[in-house]
């Protein structure tokens, strides 16, 4: 006879990462080829430039039950498209501050500049972000509860 364990299953957050093709995605590739680990719950979406990321993508991720959203782009001044990440910086500064204003935990959103050479940094950033979000727990404030219905 086995004892029924009531131990709570450890919370594993779902993280969506948007990476620009030229710096951060390449940085993630470098993290891979350098075998620098970070948790498997980080899934990367490739975008041409961080400025392609519409705030509605971030919200969509939260709506669909993501627990954290991180956006990575080239360092300011290094954008492959010259100025793209400058616009990203303004957009996300306003968006994140606004979400915080609505009471959404500010730690769930992050913007990081990761160059193609910063594989180690990419891995460190992801480890840190996953830890932060794990500590926060499940995203309940910005999720459409319907997506989890019937689960």
């Amino acid at each position, binding site marked *: 006879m086995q004892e029924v364990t009531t131990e709570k299953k450890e919370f594993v957050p779902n993280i969506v990462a948007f990476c620009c093709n030229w710096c951060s995605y390449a940085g993630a590739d470098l993290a891979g080829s350098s075998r620098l680990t970070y948790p498997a719950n980080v899934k990367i979406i490739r975008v041409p430039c961080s400025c392609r990321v519409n705030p509605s993508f971030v919200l969509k991720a939260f709506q669909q039950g993501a627990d954290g959203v991180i956006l990575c782009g080239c360092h300011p001044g290094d954008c492959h498209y010259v100025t793209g990440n400058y616009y990203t910086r303004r957009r996300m500064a306003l968006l994140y501050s606004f979400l915080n204003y609505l009471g959404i935990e500010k730690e769930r959103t992050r913007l990081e500049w990761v160059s193609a050479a910063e594989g180690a940094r990419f891995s460190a950033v992801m480890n840190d972000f996953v830890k932060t979000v794990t500590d926060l727990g499940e995203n309940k404030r910005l999720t459409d509860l319907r*997506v989890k*219905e019937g689960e």
Partner: protein
Amino acid sequence: MLKIAKERLNDLYAKIAQTQGLFLPVKKAGEVNYCVWSEGKEVSLETLKTVKSPKNMFFPQTENMMKFKTEGKNIEVIDVRESFDERKPFVLFGVKACDYKAIEVLDKVFLADPVDTYYQNRRENTTIVTLACSKPEESCFCGVFGIDATAPQGDVTTWLDENYLYWQANTEKGESLTAQVEELFEKGGEEEVAAQQETTKVVLESLPYANLDLSRFQPENLNELFDAPEWEKMSEACLGCGTCTFVCPTCQCFDIRDFKTRDGVIRYRCWDSCMYADFTLMAHGNSRNSQMQRFRQRFMHKLVYYPSQNDGMYSCVGCGRCVNKCPQRLNIVKVIKTLGGKNND
């Protein structure tokens, strides 16, 4: 007739809520809307007009119709009616005469063949406790539609004054609810109610909209009304928002949409508004492509199309919510006055 002191109303709510759901006007973030009662909620029976009408209780703004669960290439269809909470009986408390009449209007749509079982489920399991009006305001014109605001129908009718809530059961459902809560009540109140009705009627008759003339809104005038040149001017300030339709107790249009969940799709319906540019949008585009046409649709429906199909019953009940809530102050009364002939001048 029974009566209960105002300060004991909370006991009444608690008693009803013991056995069934109780929905009544609750003040939340400054506005009063129908909400499920629980201890500590700020009940506001005195509020003449809740922002949303109680139609929300039978025909919610959004309502799941079914679910599709997908796994790989398989799709499973789930009938969500099985799990309806609303199948359980509930009490709708504090419904005004106009809103009660509005439910009759909705019944003619949703309970006619083919029956809308979602609506039916809720409707059949509800006991409606109405509340007579004692302080009507200038935007009220229920009397025009033959509604007596001082004596609403319903399973139970109640009246409220400074001190007491007076209670009178009208139907079997009403009797059984009364039986459940009778111990809280004492007998009496006929005189007070009559007196209140008397005073209120005087006010009702003196209201500015009391004598609107609807006689011109008859099916035989349909074409003439439809082609009236005045529509253009009347509608020019219309924003095309859905405020009037969403606060309206009788508007019944809905749209059906799909929502993607993490493991499938939820098919739900939600209120739609004929004021919206994508209302009845079809593959070829929209049949009513100007705001004037959409504006006209709403009022023609309320005053001509619906009555012509429902024995002359208008689908406006004179609650005046649109009069109060239209951002640009357009409303059905202005339409009635403009197109309703000289008796309205």
